[in-house]
């Protein structure tokens, strides 16, 4: 084959994976790495570090691209995001600054533990898989104080949905752990953020994923230094990734706002299972 054609096909392959990653990432609130990492490593045979570098760029691009739509449409709860980011950011500093030097040689164990935790947390999600909107949720004290309850216009139900927010102390714990995991393993840990919104705070699923989507960009940007420094952010990979993932994220937002909360939760549950298995495979060193 002529060389320029091969190059174009290669770029097309990266872009196709990223387009799909952008759609899934923007709906599930996880940011695209979930599709991009396996495609780049398993199908295209690139090293895992390079795939993770691409995933970092993807997370920031999806978070910003989809975020601009979800925030403008008021699906994202900006107050929840800002308040919980405090806890995540603190966790990331503790994880990277204090724990990473101690636990550095045990990354594989950490991946396995994280994978097991994620697969276990599938259970409460599956329990309420068909639930459209959370019922009977009362604001807890902190939620009232911080004005965290909110409302969004649901295009599927064709009405404004008001929701209360509970379980803030537990959510702060989830977010702190999410930060620690990001600091230790250098991953966005978007799954933990969605779980905090879904399981602890009991907000509607679309608000959960949109708010997580909004938060992961900041966490990823805060940890970007390592990847840039190591040279894992490779120009001919991240450029097509960023462009295609942005387009995918835009399509994803249009789709998500029209889906039911229950469907969005199903997509998230699927993604959660995949991420859990992916973490186990990294821990055990399986080549999928």
């Amino acid at each position, binding site marked *: 084959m002529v060389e320029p054609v091969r190059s174009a096909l290669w770029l097309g392959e990266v872009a196709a994976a990223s387009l799909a990653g952008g759609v899934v990432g923007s709906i599930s609130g996880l940011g695209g790495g979930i599709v991009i990492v396996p495609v780049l490593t398993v199908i295209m045979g690139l090293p895992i570090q390079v795939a993770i570098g691409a995933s970092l760029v993807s997370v920031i691009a999806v978070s*910003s691209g989809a975020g601009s739509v979800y925030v403008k449409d008021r699906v994202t709860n900006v107050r929840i995001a800002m308040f919980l980011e*405090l806890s995540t950011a603190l966790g990331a500093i503790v994880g990277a600054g204090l724990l990473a030097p101690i636990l550095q040689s045990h990354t594989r164990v950490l991946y396995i533990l994280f994978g097991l935790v994620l697969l276990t947390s599938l259970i409460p999600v599956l329990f309420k898989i068909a639930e459209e909107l959370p019922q009977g949720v009362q604001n807890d004290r902190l939620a009232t104080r911080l*004005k965290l*309850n909110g409302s969004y216009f649901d295009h599927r139900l064709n*009405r404004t949905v008001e929701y209360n927010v509970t379980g803030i102390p537990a959510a702060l714990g989830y977010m702190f752990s999410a930060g620690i995991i990001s600091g230790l393993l250098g991953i966005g840990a978007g799954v933990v953020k969605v779980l905090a919104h879904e399981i602890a705070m009991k907000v509607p699923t679309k608000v959960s994923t949109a708010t997580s989507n909004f938060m992961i960009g900041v966490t990823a940007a*805060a940890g970007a230094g390592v990847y840039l*420094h190591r040279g894992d952010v490779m120009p001919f990979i*991240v450029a097509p990734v960023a462009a295609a993932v942005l387009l995918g994220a835009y399509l994803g937002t249009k789709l998500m706002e029209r889906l039911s909360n229950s469907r969005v939760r199903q997509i998230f549950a699927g993604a959660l299972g995949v991420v859990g298995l992916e973490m186990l495979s990294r821990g055990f060193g399986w080549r999928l």
Partner: protein
Amino acid sequence: MALDVEATSELENGVSQARRPAEATEQRAPRVKTSSGAPGRLQVQDVAAWSLRAGVITSVSVMLLGLLVSFLRHPPTVQQMEHTRNFDYRFTALLSGILHGDGPSIVGLGVFLLVLTPIARVAISMVTFAIEEKDRLYAVITFFVLAMTLVSLILLH
């Protein structure tokens, strides 16, 4: 079900709290204000949305420009694309690359701008909370988020 009076009173005009949300919400306009900012002022949501969009579109355009420049100058092979790494992320090195029309350096600038986007969003939100929404609590919360984000950006190197 208790609605937060502070957040809803200006819209509901003192409608009894005992009303169920499902009934109460049907008459509302799609874009409901959840913040307590004065009407007509900039809301943090709009400012955040605008800054994210501007940042991501600019950075992705710069990256695509870098890709285009690379292909126009001497099209890289798959082998080269798989192995071109190590942007020099010192700003001076990046700048001299860009001035020499080096495609990968231009992509590097785009990556830089992309990483700055969410951080700029936090900074701009902080200012909006403080000045436009007059919400001191959230301005302080956002300040700490910004400070810790910058600390970890420096710490993680």
